[in-house]
């Protein structure tokens, strides 16, 4: 459905995108995750044939974006970061104009626009000028416009930036159902980890144009860390003897004291009963045992060397 191999584009001497290789299956939602300026928008422009790559190649829906861009764009939909609504046109005009350029008859376009606006809860505002719409409303209209022709691939560039929490939740709910309802493959550009974690099975982590990793967060974590971290609550910090007991258990590779217990790394979940048994044998009460597989956040910050405050 979507493949990119060593895709790169430079502006002047700077590589805005430097060797991106990703893929997406039909109906899959993937995320391009990275801070502003990482190269996410450049990727979308390259995959939709708006920019021409300086190196590498891509195929989307079996088409080459460079040589078959016009045909490709008939089958893709894009929500740009700015939304791109013309303030001087009404909401319906903004949607129908793009539909007409796509060759959709005006009557069909109006009918579909009404259907989408109803779905996005904006049916009462169809004849309102885009000027004065809130950021959330603009995003919804722009999303409706991107969906009008039932695209097979949907590029969403920062769909929730500038939205309040309620609007963000609404938009995420919408995106979440798109792949299922419309059967579309979705490429989501975001710098919000929660969004990517919630919506996407696979993520591409990009920074300064370079692809740091691509895959499911659990797979990426498995590549980065051996074993599974387990938090054990004992009521007080584990002493040195207990830590020595624990690390002598087969399948336990590390144990560190925490404020109210210990944190151990085991090979897999199968080692947890032996770990707990070793603690109980040492006549120490166990109040809770919580396996903590690495999250997308752990993966991201480990890869980028950033802290949460920097993202």
């Amino acid at each position, binding site marked *: 459905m979507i493949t990119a191999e060593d895709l790169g584009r430079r*502006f*002047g*001497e*700077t590589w*805005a995108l430097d060797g991106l290789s990703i893929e997406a299956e039909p109906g899959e939602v993937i995320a391009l995750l990275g801070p502003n*300026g990482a190269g996410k928008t*450049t990727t979308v*422009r390259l995959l*939709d*044939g*708006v*920019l*021409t*790559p*300086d*190196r*590498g*190649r891509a195929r989307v829906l079996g*088409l*080459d974006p*460079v*040589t*078959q*861009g*016009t*045909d*490709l*764009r*008939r*089958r*893709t939909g*894009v929500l*740009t970061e*700015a*939304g*791109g*609504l*013309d*303030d*001087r*046109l009404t909401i319906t*005009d903004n949607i129908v*104009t*793009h539909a*007409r*350029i*796509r*060759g959709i008859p005006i009557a069909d376009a109006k009918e579909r626009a009404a259907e989408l606006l109803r779905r996005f809860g904006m049916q009462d505002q169809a004849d309102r*000028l885009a000027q004065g719409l809130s950021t959330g409303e603009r995003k919804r209209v*722009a999303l409706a*416009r991107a969906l009008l022709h039932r695209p097979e691939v949907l*590029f969403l560039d920062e769909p929730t930036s500038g939205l309040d929490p309620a609007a963000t939740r609404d938009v995420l709910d919408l995106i979440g159902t798109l792949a299922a309802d419309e059967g579309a493959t979705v490429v989501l550009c975001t710098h919000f980890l929660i969004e990517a974690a919630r919506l996407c099975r696979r993520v591409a982590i990009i920074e300064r144009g370079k692809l740091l990793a691509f895959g499911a967060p659990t797979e990426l974590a498995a590549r980065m860390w051996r074993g599974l971290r387990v938090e054990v609550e004992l009521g007080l910090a584990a002493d040195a003897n207990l830590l020595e007991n624990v690390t002598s258990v087969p399948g336990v590779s590390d144990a560190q004291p925490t404020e109210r217990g210990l944190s151990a790394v085991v090979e897999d979940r199968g080692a947890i009963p032996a770990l707990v048994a070793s603690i109980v044998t040492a006549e120490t009460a166990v109040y809770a045992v919580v396996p903590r597989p690495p999250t997308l956040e752990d993966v991201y910050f480990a890869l980028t060397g950033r802290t949460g405050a920097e993202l």
Partner: protein
Amino acid sequence: MTATGQSNATDQSRATARDDPTGRGAPTGRGGPTGRGGPTGRGRPAGGDRRLLPARDWSVMRAVVAKDFTAIRRSKGVILPMLLVPFLLLVVLPFGIGLAARSAQSPDLHGVLGKLPHDMARPITRLPAREQLVVLVDGYLLAPLFLIVPLMVASVLAADAFAGEKERRTLEGLLHLPVAEKDLFYAKVLGAWLPAVGVSWIGFVVFAFVANGVAWPIVHRVFVPTQLWAVMILWLAPAVAALGMGVMVRVSARARTAQEANQLGGAVILPLIFAAVAQSTGLLLVSLPIAFAVGGIVWLIAITLLVRGATRFTRDRLASAL
């Protein structure tokens, strides 16, 4: 991101590597998965249509033009300056001149007429003294000034159509649509050129009514349009509008906002063009063949500018500047 530092060679390479510039073709695609020239992806065979006048997708172009018309109609910031100058020039001025001619003593125009080309001044000197002022001003001197109208309207609309899309952040959405670059470019040009010519023609009809109507008690005949006026309206005004478009397309490529484009074009370049055209107008008033020749030259320059502008109007170049 910026586009600074991109070489012309790179731009050219990208331009020729792009997909079908006509934008039509079956949904299965035109051009096909053509082979690539090398690891950089450059030097691929162009899928472009190299015919001199490739067929355009008129339905797509109509949709773009209709969108621009609707947006212009709803934009006071565009409509007001677009209509103000024609109103002053084509309504207020002839009205004032007519009233002045009717109420004033016969002015002595010998000094003015003496400075005009002989062929132009001769028919006016034969007129009764009271007619000379309105015929001189409305019939002749306003003609070069009239060219301000298509020039100004075209430049305002072109700035809105090209730089304005960048300013409103609506350009990227257009670039992601299945419309060929050339179709988009020529639709944008038509979306500004047609209203410019329309305003000029409607303005001239209004001018003719006002000039003839107000001066009727003195002249007692329809003295506008003359044959030269007809050439001016039908041949030169569209050419000048196209020339304004050609200039503003280039200016808008560098400007980030419509206002910046208007300032660049309106303050520096267009006055120079207008001065050149107005200077030529003195010549074209002498005879019809010269009028046609001047118009032809303006058309030639305008078409050259627009064709060059179309060549540089590529998605890659536009998106790089966003």
